[in-house]
């Protein structure tokens, strides 16, 4: 019975992720390029605004932008779509006893798969700046992936469940993401930030993750202590969010 349960959950995840991917790519063979379009367009805009016009003193700025924007895109897509994901499965949640936390899980996993698919693009970009992929990637990619997944999944659980009770949360999430984008070193480097604000930036868990990715992709560097701090940080946040989700989940069928 235990064995069947495990197999069933695995099937459930693969079927739900396959559904999302199929729907996304069904009508266009260019689907992959469409999902690159948004971060690349953003990179182009920021390059123009900050390198060409404002002349920020950051080397290899276009590569710098991409290493930050791609993981940010994953985070922001997953969190941004989380308010609606439980609402769009109303009839299922209302009638079937079903591990509901799998719905946000597959949603985040889906964006995660897209992020992984963009790593070759990051690699190719790096080659232009004669950055050769290092062996550290083999360790760093899965580890940072795990941490970002934990944090993103946690927030998706929290937001998706609270949104059932306060249906206008979606608007606040958009504002929240906008603010978060600017207090995360995605298009600037942490060293450009005045000393007294730097601490606050480090408190933002997304900052750590973006910096981690960037060091990994640009320098082939992986700081173990730095990593552990953000892993534990994300884990604590995740635990809190999961707890809230669990407490609220008995009420889902009532409010929907």
């Amino acid at each position, binding site marked *: 019975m235990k064995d*069947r349960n495990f*197999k*069933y959950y695995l*099937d*459930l995840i*693969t*079927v*739900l992720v396959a*559904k999302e991917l*199929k*729907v996304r790519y*069904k*009508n266009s063979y260019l689907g992959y390029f469409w999902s690159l379009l948004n971060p690349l367009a953003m990179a182009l805009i920021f390059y123009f605004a900050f390198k060409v016009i404002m002349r920020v003193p950051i080397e290899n700025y276009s590569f710098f932008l991409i290493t930050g924007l791609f993981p940010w895109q994953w985070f922001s897509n997953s969190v941004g779509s989380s308010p609606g994901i439980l609402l769009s*499965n109303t*009839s*299922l*949640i*209302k*009638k*079937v*006893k*079903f591990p509901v936390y799998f719905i946000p899980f597959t949603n985040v996993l889906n964006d995660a798969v897209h992020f992984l698919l963009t790593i070759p693009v990051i690699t190719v970009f790096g080659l232009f700046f004669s950055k050769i992929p290092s062996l550290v990637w083999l360790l760093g990619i899965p580890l940072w992936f795990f941490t970002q997944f934990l944090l993103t999944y946690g927030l998706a659980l929290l937001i998706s469940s609270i949104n*059932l*009770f*306060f*249906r*206008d*949360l979606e608007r*606040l999430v958009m504002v929240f993401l906008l603010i978060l984008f600017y207090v995360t070193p995605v298009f600037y480097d942490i060293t450009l930030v005045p000393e007294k604000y730097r601490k606050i930036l480090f408190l933002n868990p997304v900052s750590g993750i973006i910096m981690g990715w960037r060091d990994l992709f640009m320098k082939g560097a992986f700081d173990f202590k730095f990593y552990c701090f953000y892993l534990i940080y994300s884990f604590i946040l995740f635990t809190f969010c999961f707890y809230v989700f669990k407490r609220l989940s*008995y009420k*889902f*069928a*009532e*409010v929907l």
Partner: protein
Amino acid sequence: MKDKVVIFDKVIKSYPSYTHITGGIKNFLIHFNKSIRNFKKRHVVLKEISFEISQGECVGFIGRNGVGKSTLLGLIAGVLKPDSGKIFVKGKVSPLLELGAGFHPELTGRENIILNGVLLGMTKEEVFSKIDSIIEFSGIKNFIDQPIRIYSSGMVARLAFSVIAHLDPEILLIDEVLAVGDIEFQKKSYNKIVEFKQKGITMVLVSHDLESIKRLCDRVIWLENGKIEMDGRPEEVVEEYQKSIIKE
């Protein structure tokens, strides 16, 4: 004496009024006091309901709108929790979903069968072993590899019912979804339900269609004001229920 598969013992279920908060954070803050007051005022739907259902029984629930019939199914399915009282359910519960719930319009019929089958509790392997028979039963062979957004609503309904029909449920919950598809398919699904009955599958029906309740059920329970008004043979309960409506 047959096994009891569903037992409700003095079950009470109430809902708080969620309208003030689902109106959003803005509304909640503006009408803060009122919202809190409303939240505390709970609306009792089921008042100490007790009944038992035996293995293989087909029980119909009737009553006016909003009397708590769907709440009752939610409690049996385990998606709702009672305020107090005990609920005992033995066996795998399969609810018959609203038509096409959990289907995705962009996916083909075949892909939707797999998706729906897994969502309703089958493993992929189990779905694959039954998929031919599901397609056969639905009778939409020619369109099965087309996206279901081009299906007629009747065809979607047939597909949905065909998946359910192959679930091997132990307890089947049916909420107002009997009359789907054309006459031929209605007959087919009716026969399937009769077949379920013969196999000894326990069924709980909720419907306003008193005729089909009378035809299918072994027992009918009439709910009124959150209580069981009458529990007994279908013809008698339906007749009393109709009388009470005409009286008003």
